[in-house]
Structures are given as C-alpha cells and as structure tokens.
C-alpha cells in the first residue's frame, strides 16, 4: 500500500527564532501589524510504500528522528493518509 505523509517541523519554542522575529517585523511594512508571533519551520511531504498504516507510521517517525528533524532544536508532527 502507498501512503503520503505531511510533516511539520518547527523550532523549539525555547529557542530564539530570528527568522520568525524578522518576518513579524516586516508585517508592519506591509500594513499588517495585526499579525504577530510568526514562527517559521519546515513542511515536508513524502510518499512511503508499506504493508499497513502502522508500519508506515513507524517508518516515517524513524525518518523524522534520524534525518528530517534535529531534536535538539526542532519538534515534529505528521499526518498520514492513504494514496
């Protein structure tokens, strides 16, 4: 069976996020100062071949832990859907 995973990887809240701060800052330049607390992370989509959803889930989790996210600085969440 084929599955698609949609993964969101965000910087840990405790970390200084200069990119988020810079983007929040520039919202004022485009007259959207009602937008605040911008945080920028990664969105990763991938496809995975697996016998069932549970295996697919554990494989995607393994990929996140090993490669896609660095847990010293990032947290990850993902959703799995059948293709």
């Amino acid at each position, binding site marked *: 069976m084929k599955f698609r995973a949609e993964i969101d990887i965000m910087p840990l809240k*405790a*970390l*200084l996020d*200069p*990119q988020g701060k*810079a983007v929040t800052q520039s919202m004022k330049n485009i007259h959207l100062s009602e937008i605040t607390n911008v945080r920028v992370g*990664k969105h990763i989509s991938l496809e995975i071949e697996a016998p069932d959803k549970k295996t697919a889930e554990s494989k995607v989790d393994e990929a996140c832990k*090993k*490669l*896609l996210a*660095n847990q*010293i*600085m990032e947290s990850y969440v993902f959703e799995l859907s059948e293709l």
Partner: protein
Amino acid sequence: MKFGVVVFPGSNCDADMIYVIESILKQQVVRLWHKDTDLQGCDFIILPGGFSYGDYLRSGAIARFSPIMENVITYAEKGGFLLGICNGFQILCEAGLVPGVLLHNDNQKFNCKNVYISTENKNTLITQNCLPKQVLKIPIAHGEGRYYVDDNTLKQMKQNDQILFRYCSEAGQLSHLANPNGSVEHIAGVCNASKNIFGMMPHPERAADTNLGNTDGLYIFKSILGLVTA
C-alpha cells in the same frame, strides 16, 4: 603523522586543507572519499568546510549518514583524533559527537570576514601551542554558525573545560559586537568530554599561507603536530 581529509561531493575546502598539510606543513595526508569505508590507518582525521551534500535540510544533516561517517564515528568514539571545521563542525553536531547545534546566523545572512578568537582552554591537542598568542585572527565563512546548547549542558561543558574558542575583539574583549552570528556565550569552538573530538566554525586553513598575509592558523596546526611528534 598521517592525516586523513574526508571528501564529500559538496566539500570545497578539502583542497585548501590538503594544501596546508601537504605543501606548507610537509605532512602525509590522504583523501577519504565519502563512499569508501577504509580510514587507511590515519592518526588524525579532518572533516573540512564546504557544503557536503549541498547542505539541504540542515547543514551537515545528510553527510552525517554517508558510508565513511559510520567508520569515522566509531574511530572517534574509540578515542581517535577528529577535527570538524565549519561544515565539518555541523556534521559533528548532527552526529552527536560534540554537544550542541549550529543554527542560522542571527542576521539571517551568510557572513565571510576575518574575526578574532580567544583560546579558552590551553591543554587540548589543538590549542596547547597557542600559548604565546591569546587572540588569533582567523576568517569565518558561514550562514549557519550560531552555536546553541541548553543551559545545563553548557554548565557541564564549562566545568569540564570543553570550550575551546570564543569570538572576541582584537584586544581580546568578549562583546556582542565581536560575535558575528549570535552564538551562545560567543562560542566559536568546542570539544567533546574526552577531548579527542574538536569542532570550530572559523577556518584555520585560510590563515596559514604567507602569500595571503595572515598565518595565525598555523598555531592550531602546529599544536596538533607538537604533541604527537614531541
């Protein structure tokens, strides 16, 4: 002394490193291709600067899983000497061989210039010969060099004297102005607990050729040679 310089497809400072070791320091050096696994009996291995695998996802994230790195990790965990410079330091962090992580520079821009670093701990293999000169002028060139580690790990590192270099002014003062990327406590280089794995963002190999008008980097290379041949 036999040096090994790991060559990833995207490394571009490997040739500079080999030039310093071979042509300037007249030492034996071999290239360790990322697809191979044989470390050819090297005494000192260097992960050079560059963009190992194009540095997609996170600098050094992908390189960490190349075939050569599996053996380099076991070699280092058994006490083998390993130095990671710039991209090499990022790979060491990704592989968990040294504490901490290297984030995007706080000014969100790539930054290449000379900086000054003060040698904090004099009794490691790569700093023990820097005694006469407290402050070294060494170039940096990176976009992700903001060193970060959580507070209690930092406390342990300080107790165990694992901070090698800090960014400072020409006169040796620590200040926000002298810190090019926002690293915690101005840290520019660290080592692991057993002091055989070293990571630093500045490029000593870019300050080793008299033709280029700055040879402060030689203090670090001579330190490495100093201990082993003494």
